[in-house]
């Protein structure tokens, strides 16, 4: 048992200690009541649905191209920005108040159009030339594209934080069994489930979806079978971009903030969710996303508060990143994935 194994076991032990110790500590202290836990849970599911949608983009692109599209989080940001202008327009014209579903639908439409276009453009200009290059080049290009998108949007729209309009739904909550659940969260989760169901249907029940899965399994053989790989890749990016656009709008409605850097951290976390579920695996990404959302929402209160850490919400990102790192080290093929991950290297 050399020292590397010792270190890895120490890591597992520390994480387990924090998780178990924190949970026990929190339950003993019982600082939070049922309402609070339910709040955390509902928020976690909402956040998770958003992460799941972004994770789907990552997982599909990775499956088809074996490329981590670092810029995917920024594509979500572009969708959120596009939606911002439509949403404020509908708010000013009163459409948001009178017919919120139509207004949100319009917002989603424009956002999806913009994010899909940008996703397809980035593939065409920045990723296609490096399709057959091994090594660091595709990753570097992805980082470059990420910067480029962020800064372009900063230059075009300014670096101030923009606020999505409030939906002014009174009462703002559904009351189920005596506990309040915010209507916006229900809307976000419902729409996310619908869009993920549509995506699943596309991937498993259409010819293009079958082509996607074929290319993900073995690109060369798929090409030999007569599949136009370029078209499949463009379609994959378009699908991923659309999901990211929807996720962006909902992220902005929930967090009410849009700014040029907003896509980066959710993007990395969603990548963690995709790896957790099994990279290249569509249901895996969905499960991973929900899991990550719930853990991130409930975690600070459940783990950190229990072991006495002050201001646990500041360390919220630590939970997500620790989860990401643990998955990458100990189970790179994720919960549902085949051993694609080891092949890649």
């Amino acid at each position: 048992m050399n020292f590397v194994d010792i270190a890895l076991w120490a890591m597992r032990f520390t994480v387990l200690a924090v998780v178990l110790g924190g949970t026990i500590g929190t339950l003993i202290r019982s600082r939070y009541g049922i309402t609070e836990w339910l709040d955390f849970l509902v928020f976690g599911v909402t956040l998770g649905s958003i992460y799941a949608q972004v994770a789907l983009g990552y997982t599909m692109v990775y499956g088809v191209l074996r490329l981590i599209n670092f810029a995917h989080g920024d594509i979500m940001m572009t969708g959120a920005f596009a939606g911002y202008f439509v949403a404020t327009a509908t708010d000013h014209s009163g459409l948001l108040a009178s017919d919120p579903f139509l207004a949100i639908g319009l917002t989603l439409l424009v956002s999806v159009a913009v994010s899909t276009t940008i996703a397809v453009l980035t593939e065409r200009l920045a990723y296609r030339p490096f399709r057959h290059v091994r090594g660091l080049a595709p990753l570097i290009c992805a980082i470059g594209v990420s910067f480029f998108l962020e800064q372009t949007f900063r230059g075009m729209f300014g670096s101030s934080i923009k606020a999505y309009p409030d939906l002014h739904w009174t009462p703002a909550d559904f009351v189920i069994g005596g506990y309040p659940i915010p209507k916006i969260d229900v809307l976000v989760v419902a729409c996310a489930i619908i869009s993920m169901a549509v995506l699943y249907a596309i991937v498993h029940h259409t010819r293009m979806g079958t082509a996607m899965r074929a290319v993900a399994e073995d690109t060369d053989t798929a090409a030999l079978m007569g599949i136009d790989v370029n078209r499949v890749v463009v379609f994959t990016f378009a699908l991923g971009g659309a999901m990211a656009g929807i996720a962006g709008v909902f992220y902005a409605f929930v967090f009410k903030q849009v700014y040029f850097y907003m896509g980066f951290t959710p993007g990395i976390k969603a990548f963690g969710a995709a790896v957790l579920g099994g990279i290249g695996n569509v249901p895996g990404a969905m499960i991973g996303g929900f899991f990550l959302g719930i853990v991130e929402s409930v975690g600070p209160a459940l783990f950190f508060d229990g072991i006495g850490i002050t201001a646990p919400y500041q360390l919220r990102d630590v939970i997500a990143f620790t989860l990401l790192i643990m998955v990458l080290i100990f189970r790179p093929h994720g919960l549902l994935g085949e051993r694609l991950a080891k092949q890649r290297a």
Partner: protein
Amino acid sequence: MTHLRSSLFLGFAFGIVALHLAVVGLLPMLNQRWIIIGTLSLGHGTLLAIGLGAGAFAARYQVRRLSTVLHAAIAGAIAALPLAALATVMLHVNLRWMFIALSPDLLHMLTFGLAAPIGLGLLMFAGGALGVAGCLLSWAPARLRHALIWGCTAFVIAGVFQELIQIMMQANDWTATIQDVLYTWEGLTPQGAAILFLCGVLAGGGSGLLRTRTAARGNGSPQAVRRRRSTNMAIVLAVLIVFPLVAGSYIGQVMMLVGLYILMGMGLNLEVGLAGLLDLGFVAFFAVGAYTTAILTADSAHALASYTVLPSLTIWEAMPISVLMAVVVGVAFGMPVLGVRGDYLAVATMGLGEIVRVLVASDFAAPLLGGAQGILQIPRPAIGGLVLNDPVALFYVTLAAAMVAAWFAWRLENSRLGRAWMALRDDEDVAQALGINLVKAKLLAYGLGAAFAGLAGSIFATMLGAIYPSSFQLLISINVLALIIVGGMGSLPGVVVGAAVLIGLPELLREFGEYRYLFYGAALVIMMRIRPEGLWPSPTRRRELHADDALPETDGESIAMAAD
């Protein structure tokens, strides 16, 4: 027909670039910078370059005929089309609430201050003319083209960096008289531009002659090469030592920042360039070095000296300890991720780096590390009784540290360990099969790379006098990675070039500071496309990346003869 289509497409591509620059807000900002005052601004220069480029690219693979000139003209005019369209839209609709960069200044610039149809027509005509000029330029003999490029570069650089050059020239009397001839207020005078253009042309011609003369003489024996390289290095060193004294303290500060990034770049070069371990959590080691120095030396409540029995140390004593701590953290980072490869390693190390960043800024670690307020009152280094307070002195400290580090890096690169790293980079499994202890090699890579970063962090802490957690963002890791990529992975001179271009230039062009990451992003993609080995690559790297270009021609005869 296809030539026409490609010209249209090229022109449109260049036009979109121009449109992007306008909408993002760069074009109006470039317009503020004068090259020749009153006549030629950097914005105009950019548009000129775009027009010329469109024409030159359109004519590149075509025969020298009149129709090609026409195609180039069309390309240039099409390049101007998106801008003209933008200006037309701006005249009728106010889009400023959405696109904040579409200001009246931009409109004024695009229409040359004239009424709409005339101004825009002029714009398109100028585009066409530039296209023709670009086409002719690409057909011109190489000598003429190089002379023109040298001349233009000379006066453009003199104009763009006029602030610094003017400061330097004001020091001396006879340089001050030259300055009056060349410059006025914020830019060159027309005669100054002409003079500099001529100087550039002469210099270009001279360097061309020099190159042909040395090529004719031959490269010389290995001893001669080594001697030449040592004299080159000595000259560069002398320039580096003398330049900040001449150029003022602002340049000294910029050079110090460049020096810090060179230090970090050499460390990441060990990890990424030599060992192939893509480490995006590099900023964590930088932070460890900085915070260790801070808590050992600071004169505040967060210093270890104020609540333990440990004495308060000087910077010189704290530096080795900071480096040691950075090595420990480096090895600690490396141990869990030994089995992770490729892109996953990048993301895993990024996650580790982000965890460190969040922890450092959190209230949880605030008692030790100062939280969001950071740690203040870090003293400057002192030699004997002399406190090194001004940027130039600190630059010399950085230079000394960088030279020591460079020596280490150079010796490591050519050592057994360095070769083990390169084997590891090329193929881990084969390296292991050949008997290289992967664990040891990787941990040494992480540790030694972290050591450089720790040293840089220590100097950073004392340079600023106070450290805040917001200085340790992921962006720094990506900065360092970018400068290695642009300069050339695995090559030490490449690190210097990369740092000068990616860190030094934006610092000198301060007002474009907001757009530096835009340039980084574009530069990364473009570099990967046209010159993946970097600006100053190591020879092996260049060979590897262009192996296919250099395959010798085989002809049937030689094979047949070999078969005999």
